[in-house]
């Protein structure tokens, strides 16, 4: 019950972690089923229809319900601590964002048992996703489920923007903010400007399907390419929503375990902003083959390649940070170091794809699949594992087992390269993306077998991590404030896990890497910026949960044309909003004497 009503950012972070991990697991099982189907030619493990549903749900689940929530988990767990705040700007909204995301994700996934999952690919291109070609309710689950989940993401994004702008501790100027917080900030800004576009796209698609509108129906004047524009205006920035936080994690982990400050901090900040900006300019590189014409193709080609410049700056900064450092290869740092070459490979194939004429060859082949998995899995997922190992002690008060962590790493990274490296060649040899089976004697057999074996190894890696979590959780908690001993940022200056109110006294920040700076000056604690006093806390509330449940009900009603249900759901949601605004809730206080006892949660 406590968990249903919590507004504490640390607990919400854990909720995001659990939910994200669950969906990541579902997406992973789907991936393994896909690979199992492709293990040999002419396999009949699943039907073509099921295969379409599997790839669609795999991609959709992984991106929207697996990795994005995991990013939000780390952002919630870490950002307020890194900026020296007691909470986010809007604790209530934080909880609302989580529950809407979760209910949206559940709505999308119950499609499996409610008459068919979406089957038009995670990009849901029209007319494939129109009623004509996809006549189950699958795509309706996609449009409505993602709409609701997307709402939650948007709420989370606005909350983090406001938090980072207004809740920084005294002395924490923007140019003293830790890199992870910077990337959380920029990612939230991208969310704010990209998600409304997909919101509209999903509205249009659901209107076409549910209300018989004609946005994408050519016979009534509609235009399917319009969907692609809207989808990718959101979709390409989405890629940076995913990767920038990974950059942020790497920028925290590497300096800590190299015992050096991050090389080129300000160029890192600048590069992050530049990448975000360019990310909005390049969406049509997904549409080279739609006949936009040579001029548009050339422009989008060049603007895409430009992104390699700030990305390159980042890569070199990490290398220079490692250079001459006293490097310790903990599990977290292994993942971070494994990230660098892997991500570079993904980036290089990205530049190759950005060349419009070459893309006519690569388009919709396994080369593309290999590319985006190198960046998403080899980039973001490695980054997430690194961050989880790194911040686990701060979140749970227990250090993950290093040995198991390293074993998991090796399974994962070897499996990863086996799976996806060979897919480049499959693509170059002409194996199309999203085919459900292939004939013998086309030269695809061995490489597909290798790829599937790699996927299984990756699965083992994930299981080892899970095992590690279980083993660790059964050990007594007792991690020190700064378990890595070389922590540089504010989160390491307070207990692990932090008390409910994070900081007994808001710290005074005197430079970049605030905690490191104090340590170098011979202090063991931060200098406080305020006297000890009573601490204001927000109250817990069940309303976010009920509001999201209302939206869920309304979504189902809309999908099935049950307008009574639709209205009922909306009434629940709006009634909660009215209650929230009519009854002021001033929260509660923790008195100074209590802070010593209430130190540790639960």
């Amino acid at each position, binding site marked *: 019950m406590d968990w249903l009503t919590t507004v504490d950012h640390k607990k919400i972070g854990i909720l995001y972690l659990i939910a994200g991990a669950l969906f990541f697991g579902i997406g992973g099982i789907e991936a393994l089923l896909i690979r199992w189907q492709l293990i040999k030619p002419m396999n009949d493990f699943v039907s073509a229809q099921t295969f379409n549903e599997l790839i669609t749900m795999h991609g959709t689940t992984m991106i929207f319900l697996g990795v994005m929530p995991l990013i939000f988990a780390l952002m919630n767990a870490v950002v307020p601590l890194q900026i020296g705040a007691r909470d986010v700007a809007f604790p209530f909204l934080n909880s609302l964002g989580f529950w809407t995301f979760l209910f949206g994700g559940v709505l999308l996934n119950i499609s499996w048992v409610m008459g068919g999952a979406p089957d038009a690919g995670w990009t849901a291109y029209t007319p494939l996703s129109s009623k004509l070609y996809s006549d189950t309710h699958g795509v309706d689950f996609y449009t409505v489920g993602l709409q609701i989940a997307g709402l939650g993401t948007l709420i989370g994004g606005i909350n983090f923007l406001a938090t980072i702008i207004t809740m920084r501790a005294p002395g924490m100027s923007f140019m003293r903010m830790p890199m992870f917080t910077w990337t959380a900030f920029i990612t939230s800004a991208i969310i704010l400007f990209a998600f409304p576009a997909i919101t*509209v*796209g999903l509205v249009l698609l659901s*209107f076409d399907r549910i209300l018989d509108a004609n946005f994408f129906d050519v016979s009534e004047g509609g235009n399917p390419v319009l969907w692609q524009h809207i989808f990718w205006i959101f979709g390409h920035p989405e890629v940076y929503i995913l990767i920038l936080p990974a950059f942020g994690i790497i920028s925290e982990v590497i300096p800590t375990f190299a015992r050096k400050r991050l090389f080129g901090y300000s160029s890192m900040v600048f590069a992050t902003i530049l990448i975000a900006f360019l990310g909005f300019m390049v969406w049509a590189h997904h549409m080279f083959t739609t006949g936009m014409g040579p001029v548009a193709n050339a422009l989008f080609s060049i603007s895409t390649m430009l992104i390699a410049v700030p990305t390159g700056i980042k890569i070199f900064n990490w290398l220079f940070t490692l250079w001459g450092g006293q490097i310790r290869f903990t599990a977290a740092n292994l993942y971070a170091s494994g990230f660098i070459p892997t991500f570079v490979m993904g980036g290089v194939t990205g530049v190759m794809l950005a060349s419009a004429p070459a893309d006519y060859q690569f388009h919709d082949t396994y080369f593309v699949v290999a590319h985006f998995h190198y960046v998403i899995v080899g980039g973001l997922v490695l980054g997430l594992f690194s961050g989880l190992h790194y911040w686990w002690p701060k979140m749970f008060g227990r250090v993950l087992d290093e040995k198991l962590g390293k074993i998991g790493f090796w399974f994962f990274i070897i499996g990863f390269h086996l799976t996806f490296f060979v897919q480049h060649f499959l693509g170059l040899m002409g194996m199309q993306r999203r085919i459900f089976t292939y004939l013998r004697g086309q030269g695809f057999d061995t490489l597909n077998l290798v790829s599937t074996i790699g996927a299984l190894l990756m699965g083992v890696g994930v299981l080892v991590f899970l095992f590690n979590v279980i083993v660790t959780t059964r050990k007594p908690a007792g991690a020190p404030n700064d378990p890595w001993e070389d922590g540089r940022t504010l989160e390491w200056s307070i207990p692990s896990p932090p008390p409910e109110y994070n900081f007994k006294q808001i710290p005074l920040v005197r430079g970049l890497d605030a905690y490191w700076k104090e340590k170098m000056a011979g202090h063991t604690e931060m200098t406080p910026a305020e006297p000890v006093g009573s601490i204001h806390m927000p109250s817990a509330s069940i309303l976010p949960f009920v509001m999201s449940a209302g939206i869920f009900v309304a979504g189902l009603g809309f999908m099935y044309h049950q307008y009574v249900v639709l209205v009922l759901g909306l009434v629940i949601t709006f009634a909660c909003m009215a209650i929230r605004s*009519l009854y002021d809730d001033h929260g509660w206080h923790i008195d100074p004497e209590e802070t010593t006892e209430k130190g540790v949660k639960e």
Partner: protein
Amino acid sequence: MSAPHAEQVTSALPHEPEKATLEGRNKVLAFWLFLGGEAVLFGTLFATFLALREQIADGPSANELFKLPIVAAATFILLVSSLTSVFAIQAMHRGNKKSLSLWLIVTVILGLGFLGLEIYEFVEYVTHEKFGMTTSAFSSAFYTLVGFHGAHVLFGVVWISLLIGQLAKKGLTVVTAPKVYVSAMYWHFIDVVWVFIFTVVYLLGKVG
């Protein structure tokens, strides 16, 4: 050191009550951000409309359909309501709760008037011109864009009405003031969007 929280400010109302507390300032800032997102939302809807506005299939075209007088009247009403919401905020800054509530009530009434005209317009199109959501790509784009805006107006009307109730119950405080301020920002925003709709949808539809 840190800014006062809402429950700490008990003395007389400060000059800009909406910005007197940390919560209030956060609310205003977050609302600006939210409006940024809303701008993208409407931007995408406008882009969709512009892409499809000539795709009338075998339904009526914009030129045949639109009757400018009624739209002009709706525009006038909405613009005036923006003005009355400015008066409301000015009253708030003077600390005059009564006049604040009064101007908010006028704003709500004007908003309702606008909605009435819009509903009348839609019903006319559907019943007399056989121009519904499913008629053509143009019609789908038209109803979606204009309807989305209308839904925003409706939401604003309900919201401001609830605020009027709150003001009556709790008075003008550092808790209610940011809410009023933010709702006025919202109201201006949907007004600005309407100006674009009037130009891009109606004027362009008549002449372009």
